[in-house]
């Protein structure tokens, strides 16, 4: 029986179900004390003075650190998304002279308990000199706006263009040109577990151990080493169980330096667990983009050109992701359509708000909303069925692989797929034609029923490489040491399936170790739906090398040619002579140094492999939403929903479906509910779960169809997989916005689809002043 392709129960689950998982907050070290971070209450201010005297005297307080106590603090570097200029607005772990967002770290308190640490926070006196605040990207770019960073004029540290084909000529040849402004709101990953770290320094050995790092463990290992001036070999990062990441957890944040530094400075193990109020101000936010976009089409709907300007709202500093959401949006704005003439001018703009990183389908959720909404608007104008407009422009199977053309940061070639066939299947499965007539009939009765489509191409499996080592231990068990990480997505199970199939062992005899720098020397982590693609492929490579070694050892022991041997059930067996066999444990014994060296064989059964690739596989799919909107209250009910995605190959279909469903829930949250609102003074208004609204079980659609297919395995890796982590969220904003537009007979131009906004669109109310900035 092959494990790949089957709905194997996850190996991670038993401890999580019993409550015996170990998340970072569950880790206790002898003598451990607790940290709390003092964060700026001003969105933009100069720090005049910090007085910690009263706080330090509080019984139970061990000490307080400010920037003055950490001379030579470095700025946190970018690990990706480098756009020239962004390095000018990076962040030091503690604010030195100025704070640039509410939540900017100003001091670290260490005390006997978190309760006492929070008492101490209140006693620290900070004198701020308020500076001008700017919260809107447009305003921030204007001459005269308050300047956030000394060397960044107009708060615009970076600007880049994409230019493909001849946009101006294409517009001249267009029958209709439509221009519109779109925006998506600030929202973010907000995993259920907040961030946390436990750091302990063994002074005697000069060894620092940090529990908590995840997602980009090895990258962070290198950054921490550089910032502390400690060699990597003296630092041990350990990944515990993790409560979700979605792009935001696991990047190198100020606290990733501060807590280890404090543990060395105070010679005590230190635990820092972020509370939710902090998390909603301090963990990377995302999704805030504004587009001014122009499209040129022929009367029959053929798209001639797309030209846009985009403002990427970065928040107060450049984070480790650099300009990734902007770069990604710029790469995928055209989606699965044939648009040969494309121009985009992107401005990365600083504002006095929480800094920005990635969130599941970064830049692409936003771009999909903009493009799909624009397409529907064009369809309405040309009196075409939105499905027909898409049919006309969708890239055909015979055009694959499809080169997206020149781009300053990447060169994406859509690898495999049949977009139109998948599209037709989706429309048929949700009975699109019937939905259209149902919608028309409902409207006659005064009910607002609508259907909306969102097509997407997702990026996945980013390289450049991944590491794996496969080992057979003394009991014959197989251990995979992988450079990826687990945020809760079930990667250990998926990788076990791959290794178990390669080596023909029971999945119960495979263990996966990840996120531990003492056991895994190299890794590129888990992000951008890369784990199964990259870590899986490296695991295949290492497993195959181990297979060779097993056959070699067995060959010598059995005196049979390796070609006449095969693997079965954790043993090497002779073809046709089943009693001639060696178990993996037997072979491990033979590989012990004493025996092996005498035979002139390298001891051990342990093989490494790197899988390298700079070409990404692109999953692709369709979202279709059916909604009913109450015209008097603006409340949206999602009646039916379909997501289809081709992922090339499913290692564990159950896990793939779970990823799509979970992504969909987040996509619904982004379309209808979630928003980080700031007032004009830069004060965040959504700092609790009463105001930042995550979907509950009741907000999910009444019926959902999830269709994930294996139509086009990718040729880019030995497994044929395309990463399935982001398809579920990718076009949810687009489909829901189109469905609501269809239901109400309006053109939605921004997210979220708040009841307020919808009543305004249909002219039922007129709002005098808007609390939020978009």
């Amino acid at each position, binding site marked *: 029986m092959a494990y790949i392709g089957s709905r194997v129960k996850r190996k991670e*689950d038993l401890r999580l179900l019993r*409550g015996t998982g170990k998340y970072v907050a569950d880790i206790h070290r002898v003598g451990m004390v607790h940290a709390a971070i003092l964060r700026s209450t001003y969105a933009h201010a100069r720090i005049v003075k910090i007085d910690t005297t009263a706080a330090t005297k509080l019984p139970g307080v061990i000490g307080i650190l400010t920037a003055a106590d950490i001379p030579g603090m470095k700025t946190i570097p970018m690990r990706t998304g480098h756009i020239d200029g962004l390095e000018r607005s990076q962040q030091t772990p503690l604010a030195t002279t100025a704070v640039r967002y509410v939540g900017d770290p100003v001091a670290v308190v260490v005390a006997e308990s978190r309760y006492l640490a929070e008492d101490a926070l209140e006693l620290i006196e900070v004198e701020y000199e308020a500076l001008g605040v700017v919260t809107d990207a447009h305003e921030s770019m204007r001459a005269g706006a308050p300047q956030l960073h000394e060397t960044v004029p107009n708060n615009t540290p970076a600007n880049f263009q994409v230019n493909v084909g001849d946009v101006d000529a294409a517009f001249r040849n267009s029958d209709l040109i439509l221009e519109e402004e779109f925006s998506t709101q600030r929202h973010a990953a907000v995993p259920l*577990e907040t961030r946390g770290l436990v750091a302990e320094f063994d002074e005697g050995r000069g060894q620092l151990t940090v529990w908590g790092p995840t997602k980009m463990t090895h990258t962070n290992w290198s950054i921490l080493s550089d910032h502390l001036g400690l060699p990597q070999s003296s630092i041990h990062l350990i990944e515990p169980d993790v409560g979700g990441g979605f792009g935001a957890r696991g990047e190198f944040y100020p606290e990733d330096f501060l807590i280890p530094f404090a543990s060395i400075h105070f010679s005590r193990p230190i635990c820092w667990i972020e509370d939710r109020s902090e998390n909603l101000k301090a963990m990377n936010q995302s999704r805030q983009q504004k587009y001014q976009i122009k499209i040129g089409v022929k009367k029959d709907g053929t798209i001639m050109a797309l030209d846009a300007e985009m403002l990427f709202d970065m928040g107060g500093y450049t984070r480790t992701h650099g300009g990734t959401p902007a770069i990604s949006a710029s790469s995928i704005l055209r989606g699965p359509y044939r648009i040969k003439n494309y121009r985009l001018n992107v401005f990365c703009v600083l504002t006095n708000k929480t800094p920005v990183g990635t969130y599941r389908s970064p830049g692409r959720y936003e771009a999909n909303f903009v493009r799909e909404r624009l397409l529907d608007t064009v369809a309405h104008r040309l009196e075409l069925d939105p499905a027909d407009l898409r049919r006309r422009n969708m890239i055909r199977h015979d055009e694959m692989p499809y080169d997206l053309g020149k781009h300053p940061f990447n060169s994406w070639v859509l690898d495999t797929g049949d977009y139109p066939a998948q599209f037709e299947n989706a429309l048929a499965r949700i009975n699109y034609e019937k939905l259209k007539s149902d919608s028309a009939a409902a409207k006659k009765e005064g009910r607002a029923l609508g259907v909306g489509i969102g097509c997407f191409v997702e990026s996945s499996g980013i390289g450049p490489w991944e590491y794996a080592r496969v080992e057979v231990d003394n009991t014959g068990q197989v251990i995979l040491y992988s450079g990826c990480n687990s945020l809760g997505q079930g990667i250990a199970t998926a990788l076990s399936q791959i290794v178990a199939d390669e080596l023909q062992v029971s999945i119960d005899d495979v263990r996966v170790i990840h996120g531990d720098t003492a056991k895994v020397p190299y890794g590129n982590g888990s992000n951008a739906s890369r784990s199964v693609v990259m870590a899986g492929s490296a695991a295949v490579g290492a497993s195959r090398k181990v297979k060779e070694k097993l056959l070699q050892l067995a060959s010598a022991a059995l005196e049979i040619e390796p070609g006449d041997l095969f693997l079965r059930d954790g043993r090497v067996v002779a073809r046709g002579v089943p009693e001639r066999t060696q178990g993996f444990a037997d072979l491990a014994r033979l590989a012990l140094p004493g025996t092996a060296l005498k035979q002139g064989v390298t001891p051990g059964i342990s093989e490494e492999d790197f899988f390298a690739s700079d070409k990404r596989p692109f999953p692709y799919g369709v979202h279709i939403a059916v909604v009913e909107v109450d015209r008097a209250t603006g409340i949206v009910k999602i009646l039916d929903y379909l997501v289809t995605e081709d992922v090339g190959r499913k290692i564990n279909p159950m896990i793939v479906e779970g990823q799509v469903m979970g992504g969909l829930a987040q996509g619904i949250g982004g379309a209808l509910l979630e928003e980080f609102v700031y007032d004009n003074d830069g004060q965040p208004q959504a700092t609790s779960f009463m105001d930042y609204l995550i979907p509950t079980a009741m907000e999910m659609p009444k019926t959902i169809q999830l269709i994930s297919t294996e139509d086009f395995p990718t040729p880019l890796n030995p497994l044929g997989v395309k990463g399935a982590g982001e398809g579920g969220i990718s076009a949810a904003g687009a489909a829901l916005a189109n469905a609501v537009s269809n239901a109400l007979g309006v053109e939605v131009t921004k997210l979220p689809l708040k009841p307020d906004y919808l009543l305004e669109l249909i002219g039922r109310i007129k709002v005098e002043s808007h609390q939020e900035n978009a």
Partner: protein
Amino acid sequence: MSTRQVRLTINGREYSREVEIRKLLTDFLRDDLGLTGTHVGCEHGVCGACTILWNGEAVRSCLVFAVQANGANLKTVEGLAPSATELHPLQKKFWELHGLQCGFCTPGILLTAEALLKENPDPSEEEIRESISGNLCRCTGYQNIVTAIREAAKAMAAK
């Protein structure tokens, strides 16, 4: 920092401890008693990750001070499985049907579901969704959780 003596029963076992008055029940369970299965997601009573059973009723332990639990009979996720080698039907179905991903919300949801099934052994899908509407999950999208609870109800009724 004044303290009080607290005596209570958790998962059938009696505990007696001195606890700081302002200490939340969540922190008492996790830090003082080492029962780390109950998780902290928000500390303002919205996410449900801290849900425990208090005299059989699902309650947010982050909104109770440990001193209030004097004399109470509590159940945490550690007390759900009948033994170290067996699983409660809810746990079994969650495992079979992929009802969890990161696992952080899972203890709270399991206990909420157990309370539901005690009161309503044959809930409709709508009733199940409503009963877990006070438990946030960021990973699964809830579908498998609802199915797992429904299947567990069937399995428990069949016994």
